[in-house]
């Protein structure tokens, strides 16, 4: 993505203060960032720095304490059936255990008022593209961990949001499954080119997926650095090609350099408290 693309989300001075037993906890301490429309932004940062909090505020699940968030809507009407602004893929297991794969994926469409037949017709190709064909009527406990995460991601894609908020969707998976799902995600994303905010702990994953990587400081979270990946690795992108290239190590070094200080700092602070 070049900087000529219009801005999809403009975040300015975003703060979040939690109160735990009367004691204030600063989670986010003034986040400023612009995300271009259609860009894939990865967010990395030490554990507890407020990554999930940032996404939850964008998802409307948490109130911000201060700051502004402007989202440029593609089309703003009053029709409940219109495309939603965002859909979140959660860090933890979040598909409904009592619904079949099909009903889980169609959940957002049902909420928007699509009839049973319509929404099943809509989700069908999404389920197939996520390699979940044949498992439409399976219940989550009959699926592997990787398949459950696919359902979760497919649920978000099928609802066709303008923006995807993904919180470490592959963190709990083994390395091989992760590689396959990353490639799958890239393939599906490249077809739709949605704006994505993607939180990860893995620098490697960030480089493979992102147009830009936002490195956050230890709590309270601020923007430490923004690393441009798009100018090094274009699209469409192949996971293996990225990892084999010489620039991969360079990018890794830069992100890790920024992150290391923060992770060390966070650990030192934890040891003191």
């Amino acid at each position, binding site marked *: 993505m070049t900087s000529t693309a219009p801005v999809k989300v403009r975040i300015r001075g975003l703060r979040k203060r939690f109160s735990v037993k009367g004691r204030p906890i600063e989670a986010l301490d003034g986040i400023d960032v612009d995300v271009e429309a259609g860009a894939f932004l990865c967010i990395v940062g030490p554990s507890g720095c407020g990554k999930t909090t940032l996404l939850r505020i964008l998802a409307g699940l948490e109130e911000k304490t201060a700051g502004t968030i402007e989202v440029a809507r593609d089309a703003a009407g009053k029709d409940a059936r219109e495309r939603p602004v965002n859909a979140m893929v959660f860090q933890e*297991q979040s598909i409904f255990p009592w619904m079949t794969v099909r009903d889980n994926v169609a959940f957002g469409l049902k909420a928007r008022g699509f009839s049973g037949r319509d929404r099943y017709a809509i989700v069908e190709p999404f389920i197939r593209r996520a390699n979940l064909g044949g498992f439409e009527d399976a219940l989550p406990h009959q699926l592997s961990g990787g398949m459950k995460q696919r359902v979760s991601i497919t649920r978000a894609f099928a609802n066709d949001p303008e923006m995807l908020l993904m919180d470490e969707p592959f963190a709990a998976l083994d390395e091989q499954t992760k590689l396959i799902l990353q490639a799958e995600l890239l393939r599906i994303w490249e077809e739709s080119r949605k704006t994505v905010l993607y939180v990860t702990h893995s620098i490697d994953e960030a480089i493979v997926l992102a147009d830009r990587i936002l490195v956050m400081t230890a709590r309270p979270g601020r923007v430490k650095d923004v690393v441009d990946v798009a100018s090094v690795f274009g699209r469409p992108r192949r996971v293996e090609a990225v990892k084999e290239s010489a620039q991969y190590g360079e990018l890794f070094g830069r992100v890790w350099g920024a992150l290391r200080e923060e992770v060390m700092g966070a650990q030192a602070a934890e040891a003191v408290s």
Partner: protein
Amino acid sequence: MRLRWGGERLLSVLSPVLLLALWELAARTNAIDTRFFPAPSDIFAAAVTLIRTGELWDNLSITLVRLAVGFLLGAVPGIVVGLAMGLFSPVRAILQPLVDGTFPIPKIAILPLFILIFGLGEESKYAIIAVAVVYLVLINTQAGVRNIDRIYLDVGKNYHATRWMMFTDVALPGAAPLILAGLRLGMGVALLVIVAAEFVGARSGVGYQIWTSWQVFQVDRMFVYLLVTAVIGFGTAVVMTFLERVLLPWKQH
């Protein structure tokens, strides 16, 4: 492994058979007082007579109808109010003190009041069972809703689920395991309460027959009806297990 399972099953079948045989033997040899413990064969003969005359079925069906009607009258409001209390804090604020205040009363203690209000007819039986059931179902349903993993409510909110969908697609299925546990507990208490209520406040039913058998010292008859209560208890447990299997396929592993 398989062998041990087979062996254990055999032991499980053998132990009651052995007990019955011992009992029969002890009764025949007058080692136990047959006025209190008639021989199993005598109890069986009494059962055959009671089935022949239709008396057993009459009383059983009366008790079953009371159980079913009273149970439904308690379970349905219990689920609805429990869901509402779990989902909406104002409803909880209004009803919680009433529930907490009246729950500790042993339900059978209210029977005289209900007989006073509803008379000796069927209504007083329905009412006492409903009251016994409603608390257990309500409390379990409410706990079920409140124990739903927050993440599912967040998903509902993020996807802009309507209030109705939150109710039908998230709260109800999410609370279903505990609702069914409440129904199971409620069924157990309902059986206890109906038998006790029939002891003193009825002219028919399994409980009434147990009580009168004692009064006229027909102990073999009493044992037959005791057996009937056991069968009812067993039958309701089977029904509950079946319900769980059908309604909670996602809970089977």
